[in-house]
């Protein structure tokens, strides 16, 4: 049991490190690579859970994470960037230093919060949940501190990685596989939507700010 705990803790910790790296990176390809790494770490973590919890169907989730988020989407986004000529630099709204500081603050907030309120829960739930929450918050932070659509998608996917981590960490939770499938569909739609909009040539770039030129209500 202790062994199981160590491994899952290690994997979750590595995912958190990957989240920080995502915040740190300002090259778009590097972002994609790190995200792929995080997804692979997630699939390993989920696989580990499937094995230790004796819930083989979680392997489906692990496989999904590996294939879709670890391979297909990074590759697709890579190609898209190349084909569409998106800027290779990540446009940051908030500087890297500040972002990292904020990230640290969010991480400590989630650790403090979860550790404080889950005194009664078993240690796995506590640590796993705390790390998952930190990953989720960092994903959101990435979404709001980066301007490119691609990095925003990556931010959302990273957030979703945290969710899957939390869901698989919750022992015996039903519907996890179904939910992970649903999320995958969602992400696919996300990528597809950006791609479609670009193809329609309605917007100059995938930059979301360009999407917002038309704001409905006239000023």
């Amino acid at each position, binding site marked *: 049991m202790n062994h199981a705990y160590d491994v899952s803790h290690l994997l979750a910790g590595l995912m958190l490190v990957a989240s920080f790296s995502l915040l740190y990176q300002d090259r778009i390809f590097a972002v994609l690579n790190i995200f792929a790494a995080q997804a692979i770490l997630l699939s390993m973590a989920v696989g580990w859970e499937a094995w230790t919890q004796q819930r083989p169907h979680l392997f489906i989730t692990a496989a999904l994470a590996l294939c879709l988020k670890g391979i297909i989407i990074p590759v697709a986004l890579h190609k898209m960037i190349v084909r569409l000529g998106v800027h290779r630099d990540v446009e940051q*709204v908030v500087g890297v230093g500040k972002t990292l500081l904020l990230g640290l603050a*969010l991480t400590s*907030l*989630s650790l*403090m*919060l979860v550790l*404080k*309120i889950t005194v009664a829960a078993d240690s796995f739930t506590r640590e796993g949940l705390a790390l998952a929450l930190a990953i989720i*918050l960092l994903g*959101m*932070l990435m*979404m*709001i501190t980066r*301007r490119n659509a691609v990095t*925003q998608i990556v931010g959302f996917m990273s957030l979703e990685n945290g969710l899957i981590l939390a869901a698989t960490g919750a022992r015996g939770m039903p519907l996890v596989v179904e939910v992970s499938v649903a999320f995958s569909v969602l992400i696919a739609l996300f990528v597809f939507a950006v791609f479609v909009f670009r193809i329609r040539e309605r917007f100059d770039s995938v930059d*979301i*700010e360009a*999407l*917002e030129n038309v*704001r*409905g*209500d006239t*000023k």
Partner: protein
Amino acid sequence: MTGAGFSAAPQLAILLAGIALYAAAAVFAAVFHRHKSVLAAVYPICIVAAAIAAGASLAALLGNTDSGFRLPLGLPVIGLHIRLDALSAFFVLIVNLGVLTTAIYGLGLDRDRDLSARVEPFFPAYALAMNLVLIAGDAFGFLFSWELMSLTSWVLVVSRHRDAGNRHAGHVYLVMAAIGTVSLLFAFGGLAGAAGNYAFDAIRAAPPGPLVAGLVLAGAIFGAGSKAGIAPLHAWLPLAHPAAPSHVSALMSGVMTKVAIYGIIRIVFDLLGTPIWWWALPFLLLGAMTAVLGLLYAVLDNDLKRVLAYSTVENIGIIFVGLGLALAFKASGLSAAAAVAMAATLLHCLNHSWFKSLLFLGAGAVLHATGRRDFDGLGGLIHRMPVTAAFWLVGAMSISALPPFNGFVSEWLLFQAVLAGPAFPEPILRFMSPAVGAMLALAAALAAACFVRAFGIVYLGRPRSREAAEAHETARPQQVAMALLAGLCLLGGLFGGVAVSAIQPLLQTLAGAPLPATGTGPTPFSLVAFDAARSIYDAPTIAIFLLTSGLLVTLLVHHLSGRRTRLGPAWDCGFPDPSPLTQYSASSFSQPLRRVYGGTVFGASETIDMPQPGDNRPASLNVQLHDYAWELLYAAPARAVVGLSARLNALQFLTIRSYLMLVFSALIALLLIAAVWF
């Protein structure tokens, strides 16, 4: 009366029949609104309904009926309570007499020109709503009907929607009505308590504590007071009342304001429990201020219907003073004085409903005949509309509290109540009563000035426009309506003593005692306030006296001088000018008053624009007035709301990232709170 069931006193049953007739008329007219004949049929039906309802309420008032029942409608569990007691009956009488006369006036409306699907279906609906307010026996029913009353009258206010001014008036009106309703919601919330005892009986059984009572009082004064037109909340009233068709204006000004007063009486004198002396202070202060301010507005305004609306504001002020005095006396244990003040208040409600309706109907006749209601386009109508002019004169004298008409009766009683002021145990009240008396006196004098001006400018002199010169006398039913009201004004003036003895049981309930000395005067018609040695006003005697001396004068003068009369051009100190523009105008008439009062109250200033020599431009005198109530309480908040909304509107145009940031911040904020809290 809390039990369910449908047993009702015959008066209530008959009243409900009348009310049902209103409902039928409204539905009927709404369904067949394309047929002018159906629209025209609304008024006869309303006359019948109003007569039935007025008769029933008079019977209920005289019989001191107290009857009610509960219907399984409205709020669940609590149900809808219907209740007719003497207080309701009194105001039901006011409402239905108003509807009766205005509906008679409506008979004379021109079928092709005046009838409209925007007015006729809503006229009975409006009457219906006002009646329902008065017979509601629970908070929900009361406010339901109250809002319905606002809503139906809003439709009437905006019925001539092409005029941007009317639309503006409608908007201000309904928003203000909503503010008032919310304030009343507060009041009833306080009365009902957390347990939700919304039925009046339940509220009466458990009156609120002093702090809550204070809040309820504030809510009631703000809510019902704004509806009645109390200053400084009154600014909607002179916009909305004149915007409606004139017979509706008559109802709004003459009758609906009384429904608001009913609301205040019901809450403060009935539901709120034993009064505390300081409750009277807001009434006295606001009332005295309103009475004077209303007339100062009226006397400076140049629009016939708006002048009447401002004068309504003034009269509401007088009624408020009466209520305040009654409350103060009641709280001080001076029941007899409370009865005098209450009698004055109630009679003034009745009287004002008559003369204000009369004046508005007359204004309607003028508007119909000339198409104008600005003083600068009227004049000399006494020649073309002698009947209207005569009745309007009666109305003007009544509203100016001149004997032998009815306005004076209530005014007189009120002064008697003021004179009982030294008996107050509270020094503040003792010193306030003479101040209030002074304000009332000032208001009375201003009222005379205002209506001399209005009558003089509109009916006397020479016509100031072609329309006025070609005016025609109004239709016969409209003359009948005005005649009825003028007759009521005279009868009310003569037999105030009788009226007071009819409401004795009501005074007993509201003030704690009836009038002490009614019927002890030298004649059966004498109005006696406290006792016959202290104060009597015997209108019939004075009227006979006046008639006799008038007759004597006529006989004497005609005996001495004959009746030789020669017509000639006007003298005017030898320099008569044929242009009617040389007459004194309404603005010039009010100039001295503006000089005396305008500077302090309205920040009035005059600038003279004198062209340089050689310039052909005419010189002009410009007057600037500030309506502070409007500027501070209406325009400024409206600007603030729109300004703030313009700033907040930036939030509509953020980037998605910023919106995400908002979501994220909300989450982090809650998490931080949680981190600190748990």
